[in-house]
């Protein structure tokens, strides 16, 4: 038996504990404030460096080695527009289709579990590895003996868009699955009760109900694709173009590549140009993000389940 006197007396030391608590709270708060300050400094620095270079010629001219003052991002901007439009055309149907299969059709078997595991791992694969895949499969391709030609697409927009599609697929699939899972099963059961087939139920009821969530996921996935440069460098997109692409097999550049190229030059003029191009890129991205956040915030108020 332990005697009561062996237990040390409880000393609340309230003052000390309270002070330690205050200190901890302040430390955590300053960590949060720090993140905001970094964001402000980052944006402020870029706007400061690029504002004067943000002229109409930036959007209407091609880049020039000799005359930074009138250099522009026309080729890169159009390259980005082409790239994202094609990526959306390829990745959205495939990604939404895969998510619909996994969420609405797939039986709980080994294959399904493997696909799930596989998708969450693909989401963590570095973007440059997708670039290596695109380089080997889409750019160089395989030699087909019967046709006596290669399936390679060279350094074309379509090769870039296919690579980007693979990169954003996991993001679209995961977001779409979450949106589909949030649709209550009573909606599906009601449709089945009226003798709708599985696909009729999905097409007419489940997908429309999940649309805001799916849209948000798609926009966020595409905004990731807009900012990616590493896979494009891998597949050999050019960092310096003086033309607007006209077809699927044209070479191309993209905004983040142009920014990389300009940032990497030592002359201050090109650094300013890079900052101005970053502003253009960020305006596009922030607009897309704002739309996504808007869709997400407004949607639940109109719907009650």
């Amino acid at each position, binding site marked *: 038996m332990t005697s009561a006197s062996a237990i040390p007396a409880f000393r609340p030391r309230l003052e000390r504990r309270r002070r330690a608590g205050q200190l901890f709270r302040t430390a955590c708060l300053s*960590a949060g404030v*720090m*993140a905001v300050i970094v964001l402000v400094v*980052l944006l402020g620095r*870029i706007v400061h460096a690029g504002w004067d270079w943000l002229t109409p010629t930036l959007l209407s001219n091609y880049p020039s080695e000799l005359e930074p003052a009138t250099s522009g991002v026309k080729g890169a901007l159009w390259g980005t527009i082409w790239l994202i439009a094609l990526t959306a055309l390829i990745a959205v149907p495939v990604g939404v289709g895969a998510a619909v299969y996994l969420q609405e059709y797939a039986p709980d078997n080994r294959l399904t579990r493997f696909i799930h595991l596989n998708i969450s791992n693909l989401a963590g694969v*570095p973007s440059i*590895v997708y670039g290596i895949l695109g380089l080997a499969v889409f750019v160089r391709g395989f030699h087909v003996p019967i046709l006596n030609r290669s399936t390679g697409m060279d350094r074309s927009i379509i090769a870039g868009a296919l690579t980007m599609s693979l990169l954003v697929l996991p993001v679209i699939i995961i977001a779409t699955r979450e949106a589909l899972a949030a649709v209550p099963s009573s909606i599906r059961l009601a449709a089945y009760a009226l003798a709708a087939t599985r696909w009729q139920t999905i097409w007419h009821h489940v997908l429309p109900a999940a649309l805001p969530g799916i849209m948000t996921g798609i926009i966020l996935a595409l905004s990731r694709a807009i900012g990616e440069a590493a896979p494009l460098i891998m597949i050999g997109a050019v960092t310096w173009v003086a033309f607007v692409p006209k077809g699927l097999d044209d070479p191309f550049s993209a905004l983040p590549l142009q920014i990389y190229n300009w940032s990497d030059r030592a002359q201050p003029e090109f*650094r300013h140009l890079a900052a101005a191009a970053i502003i253009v890129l960020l305006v596009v991205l922030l607009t897309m993000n704002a739309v996504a956040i808007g869709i997400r915030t407004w949607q639940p108020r109109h719907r009650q389940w």
Partner: protein
Amino acid sequence: MSIQSPVRKSIETGIEKSLLACALVSIATTAGIIWVLTSESFAFFRHVSPVEFLTGTRWAPLLEPKSFSIWPLLWGTLMVAFGALIVAIPIGLGAAIYLSEYAPAWVRHAGKPILEVLAGIPTVVYGYFALTFITPYILRPLLPQTEVFNAASAAIAVGIMIVPTVSSLCDDALRAVPRTLREAGYALSATPLEVSTRIVLPAAMSGVVAAILLALARAIGETMAVALAAGMTPRLTWNPLESVQTMTGYIVQVSLGDTPAGTIEYQTIFAVGMTLFFITLTINLVAQRVLARFREVYE
């Protein structure tokens, strides 16, 4: 289902099959990545012995005498990635604890979008920031011996970049801890500090560790910021103010040059890429394991 015509039925099956095909694209992607990396790496290892690759100390595939050891690149990568964690863990975890334990509701609502904006900024922008702001305006005034390209600026930039990953995943983990646990702590007259660090944080530990691992994997795979800021000098150094080269930085350097397919320089891309792929894959798998195995289940 006698109401339904055979046509309708075959349409239904056709749709299901094509949706399954969409889902199989993800498996084809993984298979493609592994196949491409291993087949080209195999060609690489016919010229370079794996022993040299794993035990040597010099990486110089573009200069004579050539030398192929992954360590200098791996070292540069780890230096930048762990440096990034040193920046990101205090800021990300601190911000997450503040948001989930202390912040009033309006701050919480404002905090998430700010983190999302930070997460949505392209990595090339962080590279620009490291090269034109962190090095010349922060590091050099403090430490004049800093080189133009250096590991420290890349680490800071990547650290800022992964703060949103750390804080938003930690925030989710902390918030998943049920309120009853906190209230039990307060009922025993613990202070908010004691509740946060001795009850909530241990209960959320699996989520916090997984968040840090996922952030580490992102930092290791990060490309554009390190390609711009860390430099192109593969070397084994302890000095973060010197120029280094990461695995991703090397891959970018080779692909920007004119390297014909089939040469040994070209194959190095795949050997380095395979190393990168397996390291990030392992970290991601461990993170998922940590989440699944050590998760505290409530109710």
